[in-house]
């Protein structure tokens, strides 16, 4: 559906030139909820604005359904945007805002009226159709911005951190609402966020970005369980990093030797791991405490109770603190004490070899 190949964007020239996007290659599928995730300044907005037509890429190609987009101005692209600050027209009512796109497309009045009514229902704003946009709350403005972008039935909807201005509760509500709207309308959503939890819960696929590059593309589970790079593992969820030596590698499965001398099976990243010393990632909930003499041995430094689960912080020589997360069971007895020597084990294949 959206094919982006070799896309780069360099702002400025000469000494002040800045590469905001570097060789972006990605295919976004029909009806997909696709998320661009990354820290501030990594180029998410720039990529989104390139799709919308507000940024002119320095090189590369961009097509929607095989049709070249780069030669088209924003108003000729079958793409609508929900802006981060909503950008509702302050001199128009809620209904006029929603109808604006259709009006510009020259649709007949009767059609505009009925689509606007449908959209008002869809975002549950019908009672406020005739209010000015300054007379509605932030969450309501957000809904109107959504309805306005959806009304012309674009092929693609671009959303730039649309939920970042909302408080926690409203944010959760709108996350569910967005998912509902996406499945009801069948429109492809390209969603920008720097909130990893939001990305994991909402997306079909996620592209993790850093300094203008896409590091990894995959489903939420794929990205979470099998981060390819240290940055991705660190950015998404909590992770233990353990240094190890690569013994063998074949068919995406690597054998790594831990500092304890024990060997364990781990997934190697796409494109293969570097030979010699490597870093492996183990999610805290994939590891369990066991008797000493396990894969890793250490001293229990801290036990932190979180309600739903308990975190055990284990110190071992030459390694950063390892965290084991155990889900709490009702009436479970705590067998471990701070200061105990404990072992850490994890199943073959739960560990992931990282590229640096």
């Amino acid at each position: 559906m959206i094919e982006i190949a070799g896309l780069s964007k360099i702002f400025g020239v000469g000494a002040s030139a800045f590469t905001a996007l570097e060789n972006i290659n990605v295919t976004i599928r029909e009806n997909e909820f696709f998320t661009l995730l990354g820290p501030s300044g990594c180029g998410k907005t720039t990529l989104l604005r390139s799709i919308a037509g507000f940024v002119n890429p320095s090189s590369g190609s961009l097509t929607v359904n095989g049709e070249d987009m780069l030669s088209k101005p924003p108003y000729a692209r079958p793409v609508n945007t929900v802006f981060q600050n909503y950008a509702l027209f302050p001199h128009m009512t809620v209904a006029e805002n929603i109808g604006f796109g259709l009006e510009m497309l020259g649709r007949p009045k009767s059609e505009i009226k009925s689509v606007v009514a449908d959209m008002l229902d869809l975002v549950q704003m019908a009672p406020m159709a005739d209010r000015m946009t300054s007379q509605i709350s932030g969450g309501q403005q957000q809904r109107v911005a959504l309805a306005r972008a959806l009304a012309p039935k674009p092929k693609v909807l671009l959303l730039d951190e649309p939920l970042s201005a909302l408080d926690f509760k409203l944010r959760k509500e709108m996350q569910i609402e967005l998912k509902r709207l996406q499945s009801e309308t069948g429109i492809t959503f390209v969603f920008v966020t720097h909130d990893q939890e939001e990305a994991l819960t909402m997306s079909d696929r996620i592209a993790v970005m850093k300094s203008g590059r896409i590091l990894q593309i995959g489903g939420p589970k794929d990205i979470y369980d099998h981060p390819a790079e240290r940055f991705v593992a660190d950015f998404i969820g909590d992770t233990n990093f353990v240094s190890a030596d690569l013994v063998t590698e074949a068919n995406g499965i690597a054998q790594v030797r831990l500092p304890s001398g024990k060997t364990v099976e781990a997934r190697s990243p796409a494109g293969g791991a570097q030979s010699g010393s490597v870093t492996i990632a183990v999610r805290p909930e994939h590891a369990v405490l066991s008797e000493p003499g396990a894969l890793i041995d250490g001293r229990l430094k801290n036990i932190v109770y979180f309600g739903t689960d308990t975190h055990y912080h284990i110190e071992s020589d030459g390694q950063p603190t390892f965290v084991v997360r155990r889900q709490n069971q009702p009436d479970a007895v705590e067998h471990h004490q701070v200061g105990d020597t404990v072992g850490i084990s994890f199943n073959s294949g739960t560990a992931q070899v990282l590229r640096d």
Partner: protein
Amino acid sequence: MTTDAQTERNRWLLLTPALTILTLAAAGPLLIVVVYSFLTAGDYGGVVWTFSTDAWFSVIAERDFFDETLSFSDAHLSIFWRSVKLSLMTTVVAFLVGFPTAYFIATRPPHKRDFWMLLIMVPFWTNLLIRTFAVMEIIRNEGVVNTVLMKLGLIDSPIQMMFTEFAVTLGMFYVFLPLMVLPIYASMERMDFSLVEAAYDLYASRWKVLRRVILPLVKPGAVAGSILVFVPSLGAYVTPRIMGGGKQLMLGNLIELQFGQGRNWPLGAALSITLLAIVMVALIIYVRSAENGETHHG
């Protein structure tokens, strides 16, 4: 604790300086002008304290020199008409030039806007006479335009531009342009340019974006700018006198004449009040229609 009566008294106390200045600077002189317009002209200027409505009749009539009968005269009316016409033209041209100028400046990177605004403001801080003479230097028969055109062989003899209505309008346009650019720029700078992007995104062409988003949003600035240009144009007298060379009299010149060579202070006073009335009527019509436009757009 303060009672309502105390608050009320304090309020009046606080208003006293403002009210004093208003009385001395606005209401007082206005009252004097009204009174003078009903007096008789002194032989060597000034007024004689005899009640007379002559001045008011003279606004639109002429007293015959010999038999002292009044007859309708359009001499003053044609000057009124020219004043209104040239002021309107000045305002329209100032808007047509000032709007794109303000847009240009508002879309520059923030650190460069001050420089462009300075370019607009520098002439404004220059003496009015010098600015007017500068325009004259450009369009007079031996001026820049005519010299260049003749050197290029496009014309054989200079085009007479000075002392025409065109010259007066051009002069006033140049002099008052900053007053149009400033308020439009101010409201444009406040405007959220992501609204423009949103409109482009929603399939609006450049022209539609201008008409449906930018113009409605900068309307307060455009209304203010138009008033700021129209009102002083209507009363201008330095520029019409230089650029019109005494052939294209405007209201300001007519009034000045009565207090000077004309030695008819009551007529000058009556004309001043007429000018004020024209301004008031024009403002009311303009603001009304601007408001209507607003509710019309929604």
